């Protein structure tokens, strides 16, 4: 069988992928040969009853629809209650193509896939506007509309509400090479081929850049878009892929049965398909296949046992509810748990199977020169979690910089900012003036592992005059209004190269609004945002991310279903030039870029000492580590500008200290510039080179930390006033604290500070 789902999030090495392809071929051959007409084994094998073959075909069709739901709902989180309609569209389109245009089976399949992909992406356009519950309703209305309108149109479903097509026979009748598709045994080969191919392609997709973009959208759209994932495009893509798979299932059903009526595709059928996917475990392809087999078996049983007739749908939906309420992982999770219990056996089995395959693939690789690079593209100096192999004397930062390939993006915006990416590149080179000394000797493994945590980091050699440092980010006179409310008024924030800049302000001061305006999450009413000298005010978030902005979030936005390593892998999206077709077919380009992505992530993991947690899911990790992982993820994008939204919130003192140390470390190693929003003023004053203070949406002060700390207005804004200021009588809306309100508390505070 094809590799099991259990490794889905374990950061499996891509070099396993060629092996995966061979496994699929073998699995296919195993399932294929016993029924090949004229195959000699047929004489020795017990002949399989006809109805079982019919059921197997049914199971295959169920599995295909389950795949389409797994991809759309399980991976991308876009719920669809109208999958049956796509299947129906596929079936009826097949009918039209075969009857009207005389296009026979193997040729009409890709056309049908295209048509249903197109219809599905039209529904996907709705998904761009609505989410969650609303999307569910939208798909439901779509299904209802198909039922009521589309499937009752004569031009679409044929006369007498039934579409029928002629049989397809390939080859000369009566010879050994005849493929009469009305023969269920022959059609079985077609179904197995389709399922195996779809499974193979889907697994490839899952472990690729595209699959990670899908998971990212499901986990957190806002994080995905900040990692340069074009959410619009990938959502539509997911709908298209899902629609294509459902359409293919429809095509197969039509080709097999040769007649279709609308009632077969009404909404209850969508529900039945949804039950299959949920019972299989909505994320799991293998679970989908298992559930397809289960539901086909149920169909057979409920057909055979007369007393059970009519109970199939009840049992199907009851299974759906039961799985949802009791065991949300479904059959996929059950499989994983079972495999874990019998790990010894499975290991032995997989060794038994994979060794000859690996040998075979090595032979194949020798013959194909392009594949030969796979091994050499990834001379990663260190494997994750193993430091003994590290070559002495190699600066990890140097290795990191060395490994950065220059890539050109096809986006027109980026092309305009190619010199910016050069700026990014130079900024990422380690500063030779910085001498990184390790405090402890190498014999203490524990401390060596976490070397940056104990390192003494000298001050960064910034130009003493701030105006001499070239600006990286200039947000000038930013105004953000929501309706009539002015959330941010005329705020200016400038980050210059290699600086750590703090943006502080009391509760509700407008820090996050300013930050989101800079990152592109909300458009400023007026003002400009320039990144690396280019006016980026109108650029969407993912384009700013492509330009070189990495960010973290106040409420951590890691992708909860993925491991730490896979979370970081998502951030390689911006470097990866490969497209979906190379992922589906696992072309050598996709393999090479995947290896490159993994190498990149490994470097960051190693640089930040995250080896121990790399293969663990993010759920359940200490909060301080999660903050570090989020920063690591931003670093993987190689963004020269990091924007950190309250990175110290939720951390205790020791963790906050470690965070500050990390910021110093990445700046000294990579020369990044950092903009930091914090309400923990102590932390900001400790790490910042320059600070901006805003209060009630207005700029209050800016300057070096010591200037800020002794600024009486800042102290007043933070500590409040001991008593009502006499001058505040006419200040009824409290927009501004007058500076002449020199009250006891403020003076006292100022004394304490000086």
């Amino acid at each position, binding site marked *: 069988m094809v590799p099991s789902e259990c490794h889905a999030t374990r950061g499996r090495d891509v070099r396993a992928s060629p092996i995966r392809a061979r496994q699929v071929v073998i699995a296919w051959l195993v399932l294929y040969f016993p029924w090949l007409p004229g195959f000699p084994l047929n004489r020795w094998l017990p002949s399989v009853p006809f109805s079982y073959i019919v059921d197997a075909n049914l199971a295959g069709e169920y599995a295909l629809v389950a795949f389409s739901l797994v991809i759309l709902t399980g991976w991308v989180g876009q719920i669809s209650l109208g999958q049956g309609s796509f299947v129906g569209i596929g079936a009826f389109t097949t009918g039209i193509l075969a009857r009207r245009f005389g296009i026979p089976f193997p040729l009409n399949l890709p056309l049908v896939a295209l048509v249903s992909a197109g219809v599905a992406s039209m529904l996907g356009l709705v998904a761009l506007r609505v989410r969650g519950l609303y999307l569910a309703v939208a798909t439901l209305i779509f299904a209802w509309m198909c039922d009521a309108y589309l499937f009752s149109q004569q031009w679409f479903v044929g006369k007498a509400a039934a579409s029928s097509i002629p049989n397809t026979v390939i080859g000369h009748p009566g010879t050994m090479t005849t493929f009469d598709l009305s023969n269920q045994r022959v059609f079985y080969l077609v179904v197995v081929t389709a399922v195996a191919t779809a499974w193979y392609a889907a697994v490839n997709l899952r472990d690729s850049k595209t699959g990670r973009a899908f998971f990212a959208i499901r986990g957190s759209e806002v994080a995905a878009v900040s990692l340069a994932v074009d959410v619009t495009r990938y959502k539509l893509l997911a709908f298209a892929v899902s629609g294509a798979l459902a359409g293919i299932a429809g095509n197969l059903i039509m080709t097999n049965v040769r007649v279709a009526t609308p009632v077969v595709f009404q909404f209850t059928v969508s529900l039945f398909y949804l039950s299959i996917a949920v019972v299989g475990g909505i994320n799991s392809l293998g679970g989908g296949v298992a559930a397809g087999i289960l539901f086909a078996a149920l169909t057979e049983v409920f057909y055979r046992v007369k007393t059970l007739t009519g109970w199939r749908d009840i049992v199907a939906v009851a299974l759906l509810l039961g799985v949802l309420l009791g065991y949300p992982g479904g059959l996929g999770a059950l499989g994983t748990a079972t495999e874990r219990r019998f790990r010894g056996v499975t290991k032995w089995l997989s060794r038994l199977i994979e060794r000859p395959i690996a040998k075979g693939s090595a032979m194949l690789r020798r013959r194909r020169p392009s594949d030969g690079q796979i091994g050499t593209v990834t001379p990663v100096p260190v494997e994750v979690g193993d430091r003994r192999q590290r070559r002495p004397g190699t600066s990890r930062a140097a290795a990191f910089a060395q490994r950065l390939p220059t890539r050109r993006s096809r986006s027109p915006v980026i092309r305009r900012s190619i010199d910016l990416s050069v700026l990014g590149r130079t900024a990422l080179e380690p500063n030779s003036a910085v001498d990184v000394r390790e405090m402890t000797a190498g014999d203490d493994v524990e401390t060596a592992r976490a070397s940056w945590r104990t390192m003494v980091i000298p001050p960064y050699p910034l130009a003493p005059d701030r105006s001499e440092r070239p600006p990286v980010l200039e947000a000038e006179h930013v105004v953000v209004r929501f309706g009539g409310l002015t959330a941010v008024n005329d705020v200016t924030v400038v980050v210059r190269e290699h600086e750590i800049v703090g943006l502080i302000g009391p509760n509700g001061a407008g820090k996050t609004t300013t930050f989101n305006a800079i990152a592109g999450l909300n458009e400023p009413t007026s003002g400009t945002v320039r990144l690396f000298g280019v006016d980026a005010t109108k650029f969407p978030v993912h384009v700013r991310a492509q330009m070189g902005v990495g960010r973290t979030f106040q409420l951590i936005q890691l992708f909860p279903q993925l491991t730490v390593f896979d979370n970081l892998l998502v951030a390689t999206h911006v470097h990866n030039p490969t497209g979906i077709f190379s992922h589906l077919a696992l072309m050598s380009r996709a393999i090479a870029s995947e290896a490159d992505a993994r190498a990149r992530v490994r470097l960051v993991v190693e640089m930040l000492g995250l080896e121990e947690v790399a293969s663990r899911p993010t759920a359940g990790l200490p909060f301080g580590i999660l903050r570090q992982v989020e920063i690591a993820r931003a670093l993987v994008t190689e963004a020269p500008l990091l924007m950190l939204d309250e990175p110290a919130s*939720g951390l205790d*003192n020791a963790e906050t200290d470690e965070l500050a140390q990390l910021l110093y470390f990445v700046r000294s190693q990579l020369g990044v510039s950092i903009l930091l929003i914090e309400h923990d003023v102590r932390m*900001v*004053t*400790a790490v910042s080179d320059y600070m901006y203070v805003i209060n009630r949406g207005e700029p209050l002060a800016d300057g*070096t930390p010591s200037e800020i700390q002794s600024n009486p207005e800042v102290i007043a804004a933070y*500590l409040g*006033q001991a008593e009502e*200021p006499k001058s*505040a009588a006419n200040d009824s809306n409290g927009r501004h604290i007058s500076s002449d309100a020199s009250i006891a508390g403020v003076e006292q505070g100022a004394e304490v500070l000086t």
Partner: protein
Amino acid sequence: MSPSVVTTESSHDVITDGNDSAAALLTVDAIDVHYGPIQALRAVSLTIGSGERVALVGANGAGKTTTLRAISGLLAPTRGRITFDGEPIGGMAANKVVQRGIAHLPEGRELFFGLSVEENLRAGFWSQRRAGRAYKSQRDQVMDHFPILRERAHQAAGTLSGGEQQMLGVARALMSNPRLLIVDELSLGLAPKIVSQLFDILAEINRAGTAVLIVEQFVHMALANTDRAAVLAKGEVVLAGPSRDLLADPQLIATYLGEQAPKPDEPPRRPSRRAPKRTSNRT
């Protein structure tokens, strides 16, 4: 470290010092609170006597609101005990806690904005419906503190000004006839003049015998209006004592704004802040 810095263990002593423990209305004993993987509170202890005014201050994110939520039952402590009037209330649902006599005005007011002023007050009286008190007399008694609300009785709460909303929040909390009134961020978004009016009203209420626990970002305002206070930082009580004494404590300011940044010509230091360490072991 300054001598007034107290550890969690001793802060408990300080805060109960001078109070007969039998008279303690509310005792919070070394509670931890978690939000998923985040530990928001670490062994926080607090005592409030009958009719006392206590402030909880600290920087944003220090755990003040979390402490209040644990007391009023919106959050369950993962460790430690909370007793009110001698009975344990830790982990009890908020709708039960309010019947015991704790009223909590949450941060951001959390009025029923779509409902009228009168309906908000009726909602505030919900826990007293079956306690044999008349709604009308209770409402009139509460409204005496807030004459403006009488005029606005049929207006939707969402249309009130910020100050009026906060008054309605206090009034709604008082409708449950509480023995302990908890107020979170009274000053949030309000002009200083309004805030001082509100503090005057709280003082009136307190004189009538209701204990008051306030959380306030603006530390001077909080300390000027309370008898005792505790300072939270990063989910721990770092300072506690009479409010007047705390005002003079340099550690208080450091908790908020950090120590002075190094002079540019000084040798660099690790960006470490010397926050007081706890003596109790975290488990």
